[in-house]
């Protein structure tokens, strides 16, 4: 709250599209290299996570996550409007869940086929 305040434009919608874990990401920029629409730019500081510059151009293919050699360094996030839309109901208990909820259920660890 005591940070210096700047004149900046509104954050775009969406503003994030991917999230980096700075403890895992080593700034190799492979994700930057494969992104079809140049959503991310290399960080001016070497070995740091890229900067999301053109978030609204992301089409959410997940290629950056697939390309990443360090699992957990990058996570894809759908726009909030799309995450709030993804809801499911557990058949036997009737519980409601949604993508991005506060206390999510345990992960389903089954990998995809093949």
């Amino acid at each position, binding site marked *: 709250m005591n940070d210096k305040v700047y004149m900046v434009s509104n954050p775009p919608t969406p*503003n*994030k599209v991917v999230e980096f874990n700075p403890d895992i990401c080593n700034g190799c920029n492979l994700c930057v290299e494969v992104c079809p*629409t140049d959503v991310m730019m290399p960080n001016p500081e070497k070995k740091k*996570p890229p*900067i999301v*510059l053109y978030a609204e151009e992301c*089409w959410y293919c*997940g290629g950056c996550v697939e390309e990443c050699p360090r699992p957990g360094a990058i996570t894809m996030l759908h726009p909030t409007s799309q995450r709030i839309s993804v809801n499911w*109901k557990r058949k036997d208990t009737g519980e409601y869940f949604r993508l991005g909820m506060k206390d999510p259920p345990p992960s389903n660890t089954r990998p995809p086929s093949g």
Partner: protein
Amino acid sequence: MATWHEYIQKEGTLPEWPYPIGYGKVNEVTADVLIIGGGVAGCHVAISAANNGAKTVVAERGMAKRSGAGGAGVDHWHGACTNPCSKVTPEMYTRAVFDSAHGYTSIPVRYISTREGWDTLLDCEKMGVRIRDVEDEFKGADFRDEETKLMFAYDYKNRHVIRVWGYNIKTCLYNQMKRLGVAVYNRIVITSLLTEGGRQGTKVVGATGVNTRSGEFYVFRSKATIIATGGVGRLWSFAPELTASGTMGDLNSAGVGQAVGWKAGAEFVLMEQTGPGWMYGFGYAPYSMANASNTYHGTPIVDAEGKEVPWVDFKGRQLETVEERFLPSAGQKFQLGIGIGLYYYLKEYVLNELTPDLPKRILEGEFKLPLYADLTRLPEPERRAIFGMMVGNEGKTRIPIYDTFTKAGFDPDKDMLQAPVMLPEAYRVSNFWSGMSPPYLRGLAGGGLLVDWDLKTSLEGLYAAGGSSLFGGGCHGESHTTGRYAGRKAAAYARMAPEPVVDRQQIEAEKAIAYEPLKQSKDGIGWKELNYAIARVMQDYCGQYKNELTLNLGLRLLKELRETEGAKAFASNPHELGRLLECFSLITVGEMTMNASLVRKASSLYLDFYRLDYPELDPPQWQKLLPIKLEDDRVKVGELPFDHHLKPPYAPTYEENYQLHCGL
């Protein structure tokens, strides 16, 4: 640190452009075969051309390892008619598509796609794409052949659509292309085709483009050139934010291939056909919501109280068992899948579907919203094939859906995925995640470059391949297959062709045009505002209903945009320059669409095309193709019967023409 906003508020300074700028620097590249567009079609052209000995160059807008509409993966492959289990021949399939389209499709493109589709898939298998259940995970399932271990989709009796584990298909193609020594130039927005003497309608000898990281100019000289670009998604459906999140095509889909082909004088056909467009960012993430279509075909849909929505066959008869959903009914020859570039299907080839009176039954209270996909009602192999195999391999599903959902705890063995809550009428189409598009959002639907049995366009030296820029193109598999064929033909042509001679004046003129946006005042409009204005003109003046006057007014406004706001729009860096140059392609494709719409003076049910001034539906005298092209910058209209590819100078049957031209 993740976003630009976070960076500048933390650092207090603007980061400089991270790549060296080289505005005006010219790079010259020579090739036997130049491919414009490095999506699945373009990469397959490259592999095929290189295998046939050509020095091959790809100019790609994104980065060829993962870009393109098909670059994010594929879960089923249509038209694999020559696979050992198929009961459908290429002749039968092509006839079914031709009849369903009521003639409005390309016979060579459809026949080549089904005649070589399986061989192309086998090539993909050799490159590392899994197409068989080698681990026997699905042993004994209805949709599996025990001998070949192939798995089928939609129509389990006729077995011409193959389920594939194609999440990595683009990286496999990319690696193969690199192994063969293909030179790939990424981040290039193509700005023109170079022609002999710089004149419209002459031989194509190369192309120009701009790199969207460095701003450098590229001149490609080539003996043969192939347009393998994608669709034109941004033409009608554009909102300045949340742009491509709900689509199966990214923002690079800007009609660049169509625009440069048109300006060079190539002939196009059926550009007047449009269909309902995507919702773009206002929609849902593809495959993220309950539905019963395409990848989710056969999924049980239940209401809020667990009551199941019935499935019906082509005659509206209720299907009692899950097995029947995947089989043709008596009276049907076989079923065609969806997503193959067809707007209209004949009943005898249509898939089983959720009962079409669902909207009425929701209104009457029989089914209570929200609806759910209850995959637990399926046998385990079918459930796993849909969520785990297909969702997990289809484009934009491995990370965005499968990984994201399972990490968040979703379990198809226990959970019911909710459908979007929409107006009742939106449940008429079982692809619920696509939501209900506003009716003014349209998209091109099947028109493109007119090609012959060599997949050559009307211009010497210019070929076409792919799903969107090629007339008659359809799905992912067809893009690979036409690419493989066109690459072979272009390489053969290049072997006989003389060294390409480019026109220096044409290059200088194109270079000047390309850099105009950098010279404009920075207090003007940017590419997004221009793009949105173009989309508005298309939405209003080239929607589902049109007349002579609205189309002519639309043409006038597009010209206005190009010469007034467009001429003053600015670009701050090479990225914005690329997007702005694409906007000029959008204007050109908009003009092509309106011109094509003007020459069809009749309405058509099969084209979803309605002229308010010519309301009669499909009058016989208008049941024909109306190819258009530019000659001395004026639109010239031709006329072709639907079966022109089976009339002299061509042979009378599909197979004879194929044998005469395939080059094998």
